[in-house]
C-alpha cells in the first residue's frame, strides 16, 4: 500500500489494518481515525459510504486505462465526462461543465499544484498522461476546506510514485502519439523515480507530405502540429516518519502554418518575380514543479508541506508580407505582424495538518500563500517602405493570495457524523483586497451498514477569470485576476443524497443538488478569436446562473465484469441582462443524460469495453422570426439566447484489448477502439432554412463520424541484477 493510501484510510474513519513501514505503533495499527479525504486512488465504494463527503468520485488508473481510449489514448477527462452531473460540451473536446458550470471553473490539480492549461490538440486530449496517473479525486459538491478558487469542481490528479523494488515500464504506440514510461529504485527501498514522456507525430507525417506536394510548385504551403509532455518524480523515504517528494511536469503544443504564392510584375525592362507569404505560429503549454514533505509527528498528527510553481504560457504570431514592384523604387514589401502572448504564473507554499485529539474528532487545518502573475500582451506592426507603425497592449497583474481553513469531522453518535469547516481566502491585486469566507458543512446519517444519507453545503469563490471569446479551449484564451471592476465569481451549492452498498456487488446512489452562481462573465463584444485585452473588464458582461438536478449511479462489479449505469436529470440557466432581459437556457443545458458502461474480462488474453453515451441536445441561438426588408428579402431576428434545442446526442464506443505474455515476462497489448460505432453525426451547430412550401426547418451540422484506431503497448520488466 502506498503512503497516500494510508492517509486515505485514516481519513475515512476506516479501521487501518495494514500500513507501510513508515508508520506507527501497534496501538495505531487498529486505530480508527476520522478525517476528510486527503487524496485518493484506491478507495472503494464501501469506504465512500463511511465518509461525510458528497459528490465525490474516485477514479483509479485501472479504470482510466481500461476505459475507452479515444484514438487509442486513454484519457482522464474523457472518463470524467461519462460521469453523471457532467456535460461534455463540444464533441471530442475536453470540456467539463459540472453542475451547470462554465468549463473554466474547474480546479485541476496535479500532485497538489494547480494546472491552468489542461489540454492538448485544442482539447482533444488532456494534459494528464494516464501511464503515470495513480488516481483521480473528482469532486462535484461538498468540497473539503482544503480546496478553493474555483466554482464547480475539483479534479485532483495524483501520479504514481516510482517502484522502490524493481525496474519496469511501458511503451506504447498509437495513431496519434507514442508514450514511454519507466520507473524503478535509485536506492532500493529508499529512493525511487518515475519518468514518462509522450509525443505526437502528426508533424512527422505532414512535413514530408507537404514537401512532396510542394515539389515543383511555385505556390507552396506547409503545416505541422505536434505536442509533447513529460512527467518526472523522485521520492525519498527519509525516515520512518517522513518522506520528500520532488515532481516535475512539462507540456507543450505547437502549430505552424505557412503559405507562399508567387507574384509577377511586368516592369519596363523585365518581368520581376516575388512571393507573397503568410505564416502562423501557435504554441501553448505548462510547466509545473513541486517539492513536498510528508511527515508524521507523534501518534496522531500527519502533516504535509509543499512548495510549488506552475506556469502556463501561450503565444500566437501571424505574419503577412505582400510583394510588389515599382520601376522607380524597385522591390516593395509591405508586411504586417500580429502577436498575442499570455503568461500565467502561480508560485506558492502550502501546509496541511491532520490531527485526531480524540476518537470522535479529526481536525484538519491548513494554510496557503502565494503569488499569481498574469501577463497578457498583444502587439501589432505594419511596415511599408518608409513607414512603420506599431501598436499593442500589455498588462501586468501581480496578485497575492492566501487561504486558511479548518474543519472538524465529528462522530456525534454511532450513526451521525458532521464535518464542519471554514475557509478564509483573501486576494490582493493592485491595491484592491477581496476577502471571502467560505463555510463548508457536511452531514452523514448512517441508516444501517449498507445505507447512508448525506447532505452538504459549500461556498466557493473564483478570483481567476478565463478570458475567452469562444466556447473552445484555444490558446488565444488567457487568465486574468479579479480587479476593482471585476468581482470574484461566487457559487453556493447544496447537495444531498442516499448512498447504498447492496449485496452481490451492487451499488446504488441517488444524489440531488441546487447551485447558484453570481458575478459570472460573458463576452458581449464583436465576433473574434482574440480577447480584447485593453477592454476585457468592460467587454465582458456580468450575470448570474443557476443549476439543479438529480443523479443516479448504479453499479455492478465482479472481478471479471464491471457495469455502470448513470442517469442525470438537470437544468442549467443563465441571466445576462446585456444579452437578454430574463433567464435563458445555458448552452450545455442537457435535460437528460444516460451513460451505460460495461467491461468484461473474458480471459487473461482478451477483454472488451463498451460505452453508450446519450444526452438531450444542447442549446444554441437560431433565428426565431423572419422580417421582410423593404425589398421583401428575409431578415433574421432572434427572440432570446439559446432558444433552440439541438437534436439528442448519442453514440456507442467499443474497445478490445488483446494481451500476450512474452517469454521474458513482459506483456504486450493490442488495442482496437472504435469511436461512434454506428456513425451518428451528432450536431455541433444548427441554423434554419426555408423549405419549398414556405415553412422553415432546422438544419443540424454534424462533424464526427466513426473513428477506428489501434495501438500497441508493451509493459516490460527489467531483470533484477543478482
Amino acid at each position, binding site marked *: 500500500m502506498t503512503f497516500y493510501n494510508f492517509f486515505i484510510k485514516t481519513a475515512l474513519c476506516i479501521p487501518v489494518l495494514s500500513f507501510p513501514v513508515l508508520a506507527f505503533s501497534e496501538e495505531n495499527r487498529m486505530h480508527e481515525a476520522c478525517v476528510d479525504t486527503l487524496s485518493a486512488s484506491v478507495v472503494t465504494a464501501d469506504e465512500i459510504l463511511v465518509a461525510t463527503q458528497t459528490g465525490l468520485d474516485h477514479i483509479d488508473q485501472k479504470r482510466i486505462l481500461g476505459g475507452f481510449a479515444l484514438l487509442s489514448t486513454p484519457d482522464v477527462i474523457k472518463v470524467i465526462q461519462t460521469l453523471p452531473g457532467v456535460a461534455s460540451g463540444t464533441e471530442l473536446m475536453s470540456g467539463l461543465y459540472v453542475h451547470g458550470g462554465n468549463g473554466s471553473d474547474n480546479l485541476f490539480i496535479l500532485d497538489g499544484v494547480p494546472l491552468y492549461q489542461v489540454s492538448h490538440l485544442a482539447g482533444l486530449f488532456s494534459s494528464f498522461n494516464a501511464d503515470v496517473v495513480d488516481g483521480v479525486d473528482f469532486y462535484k459538491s461538498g468540497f473539503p476546506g482544503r480546496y478553493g478558487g474555483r466554482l464547480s469542481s475539483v479534479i485532483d490528479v495524483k501520479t504514481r510514485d516510482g517502484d522502490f523494488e524493481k525496474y519496469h515500464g511501458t511503451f506504447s504506440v498509437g495513431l496519434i502519439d507514442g508514450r514511454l514510461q519507466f520507473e524503478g529504485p535509485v536506492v532500493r527501498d529508499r529512493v525511487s523515480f518515475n519518468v514518462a514522456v509522450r509525443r505526437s507525430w502528426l508533424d512527422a507525417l505532414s512535413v514530408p507530405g507537404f514537401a512532396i506536394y510542394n515539389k515543383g510548385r511555385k505556390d507552396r504551403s506547409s503545416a505541422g502540429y505536434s505536442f509533447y509532455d513529460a512527467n518526472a518524480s523522485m521520492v525519498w523515504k527519509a525516515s520512518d516518519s517522513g518522506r520528500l517528494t520532488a515532481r516535475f511536469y512539462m507540456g507543450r503544443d505547437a502549430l505552424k502554418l505557412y503559405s507562399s504564392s508567387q507574384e509577377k510584375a511586368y516592369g519596363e525592362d523585365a518581368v520581376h518575380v516575388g512571393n507573397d507569404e503568410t505564416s502562423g505560429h501557435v504554441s501553448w503549454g505548462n510547466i509545473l514543479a513541486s517539492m513536498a514533505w510528508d511527515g508524521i509527528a507523534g501518534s496522531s498528527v500527519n502533516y504535509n508541506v509543499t512548495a510549488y510553481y506552475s506556469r502556463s504560457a501561450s503565444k500566437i504570431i501571424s505574419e503577412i508580407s505582400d510583394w510588389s514592384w515599382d520601376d522607380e523604387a524597385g522591390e516593395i514589401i509591405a508586411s504586417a505582424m500580429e502577436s498575442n502572448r499570455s503568461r500565467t504564473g502561480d508560485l506558492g507554499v502550502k501546509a496541511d495538518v491532520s490531527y485526531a485529539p480524540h476518537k470522535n474528532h479529526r481536525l484538519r487545518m491548513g494554510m496557503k500563500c502565494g503569488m499569481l502573475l498574469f501577463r497578457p500582451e498583444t502587439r501589432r506592426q505594419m511596415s511599408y517602405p518608409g513607414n512603420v507603425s506599431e501598436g499593442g497592449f500589455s498588462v501586468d497583474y501581480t496578485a497575492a493570495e492566501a487561504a486558511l481553513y479548518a474543519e472538524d469531522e465529528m462522530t456525534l453518535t454511532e450513526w451521525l457524523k458532521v464535518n464542519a469547516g471554514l475557509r478564509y481566502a483573501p486576494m490582493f491585486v493592485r491595491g484592491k483586497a477581496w476577502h471571502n469566507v467560505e463555510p463548508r458543512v457536511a452531514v452523514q446519517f448512517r441508516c444501517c451498514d449498507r445505507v447512508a444519507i448525506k447532505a452538504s453545503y459549500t461556498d466557493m469563490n473564483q478570483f481567476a477569470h478565463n478570458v475567452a471569446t469562444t466556447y473552445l479551449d484555444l490558446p488565444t484564451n488567457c487568465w486574468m485576476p479579479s480587479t476593482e471592476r471585476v468581482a470574484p465569481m461566487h457559487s453556493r451549492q447544496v447537495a444531498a443524497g442516499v448512498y447504498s452498498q447492496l449485496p452481490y456487488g451492487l451499488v446504488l446512489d441517488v444524489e440531488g443538488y441546487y447551485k447558484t452562481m453570481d458575478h459570472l462573465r460573458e*463576452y458581449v463584444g464583436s465576433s473574434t478569436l482574440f480577447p480584447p485585452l485593453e477592454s476585457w473588464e468592460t467587454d465582458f458582461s456580468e450575470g448570474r446562473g443557476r443549476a439543479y438536478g438529480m443523479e443516479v449511479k448504479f453499479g455492478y462489479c465482479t472481478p471479471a465484469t464491471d457495469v455502470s449505469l448513470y442517469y442525470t436529470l438537470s437544468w442549467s440557466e443563465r441571466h445576462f441582462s446585456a444579452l437578454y432581459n430574463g433567464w435563458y437556457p445555458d448552452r450545455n443545458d442537457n435535460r437528460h443524460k444516460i451513460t451505460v458502461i460495461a467491461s468484461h474480462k473474458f480471459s487473461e488474453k482478451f477483454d472488451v469495453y463498451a460505452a453508450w453515451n446519450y444526452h438531450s441536445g444542447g442549446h444554441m441561438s437560431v433565428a426565431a422570426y423572419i422580417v421582410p426588408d423593404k425589398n421583401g428579402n428575409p431578415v433574421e431576428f432572434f427572440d432570446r439566447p439559446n432558444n433552440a434545442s439541438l437534436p439528442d446526442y448519442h453514440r456507442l464506443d467499443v474497445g478490445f484489448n488483446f494481451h500476450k505474455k512474452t517469454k521474458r515476462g513482459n506483456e504486450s497489448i493490442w488495442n482496437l477502439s472504435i469511436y461512434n460505432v454506428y456513425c451518428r453525426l451528432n450536431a455541433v451547430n444548427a441554423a*434554419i432554412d426555408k423549405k419549398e412550401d414556405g415553412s422553415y426547418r432546422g438544419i443540424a451540422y454534424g462533424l464526427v463520424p466513426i473513428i477506428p484506431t489501434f495501438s500497441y503497448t508493451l509493459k516490460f520488466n527489467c531483470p533484477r541484477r543478482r
Partner: protein
Amino acid sequence: MRLLMTSVLLSAVACEYDFELRNMPQDPLLCVECLPGLSDTTFVRVRVAVPVGNAAADVPPVSGTSVCLSVNGEDVPVMVYASGENAVTFYSLPELSCGDVLEMKASLDGLEPVSSCTVIPGAVPEYEVEMNKRNGDIVIVVSIKDDQTSEDYYAVGFARKTRFIDSRGDREEIAYGRLELTDRETYPDLDNSGVMQLDSFRSFYVLNDRGCNDSGIKTVSVTGYYSKDLWVEDDDGIWGHGVQYQVTCSRLSPESYNYLRSRYEVKQDGLAYHGLAPGNFAYTNIAGGLGVFGGAATSSSGWLDNI
C-alpha cells in the same frame, strides 16, 4: 491569421441533416424601429415578424397598424408616410430636445400590441475632424470628446459628394459608407437599411466609449480613395470635378446602441452565429415585439472641402 483560424474552424462542419425545431414561438409579432432624434421628422417603421416555427401563421396586412407617440406625456400627431406590402412607415413632427421622454404604442388586429419608451440622449457630441493624405489615400480622423463620468454610445457616418461639371451638365453624386476603417479596432460597420434615413442607403459606425485615451478622446479613423479636385476654366466656363466630405456624429441612447449592435452581430455570420461563441443577437426594448425605440442626437459637420 484570424481568417485562417476562423476558416479552419468553420470548414470542419461536414454533414447536415434536418431536425424539428422544438419550443419555438408560434405567433407573429410586430417589429417596430424608431430612432427619434433632434431632426424635425421622426420616422417609425413597422413590419410583421413571421415565426419560423409557424410560417403558415395567419398574418394580417401590416397596413392596418396604428401607432401612437407621446412626448413628455403629451400625444403628438402621427401620420402615414408610406405603406407597402412588407412595411408601413409613419412620421411625426414633434420638436424634440435632449432629455425628452418619448413613449410609443403600436397595435395591429390579431397581434399582440407593443409599447416602449426612450429618452433623447444628452447634448450632441463634441468632435473634431482632421483630414490627411497618406500613400495615395485620404484619411479622415474623427476625435470625439467623451464624458468619462458616464457610459456613452456614438454613431459616426461618412459621406462623399462628388460634383461633376462636364458635357453632361452640372451634377452631384453622394455616396455613403465608402470609407473603410483605417485601423484594426473592431468597430462594427452597420448597414442601417433605411432606419435613420429612409431615402438613401447609409452606413455608419456604432461604437461605445471604451478605449478612450487619457484625455477622454475617442477616435475613429477611416480611409478612402483620394481624388484630387480638378477644375479648369476656359472660354467655355468652368469644368472638372471636385470632392467634398461630410461627417455625422450621433450620441445614441443605450437601447439604440444595443439594438444596432445586435443587428450587426447577425450580419457578421461569425463564430457566434455558428454556435461557437456567445452571441448578442436578441436585443429589443419593444415590449411584446421586436425592434427598437431608441433616441439619437445627431449633428453634422456640413460639407468639408477636399484637401
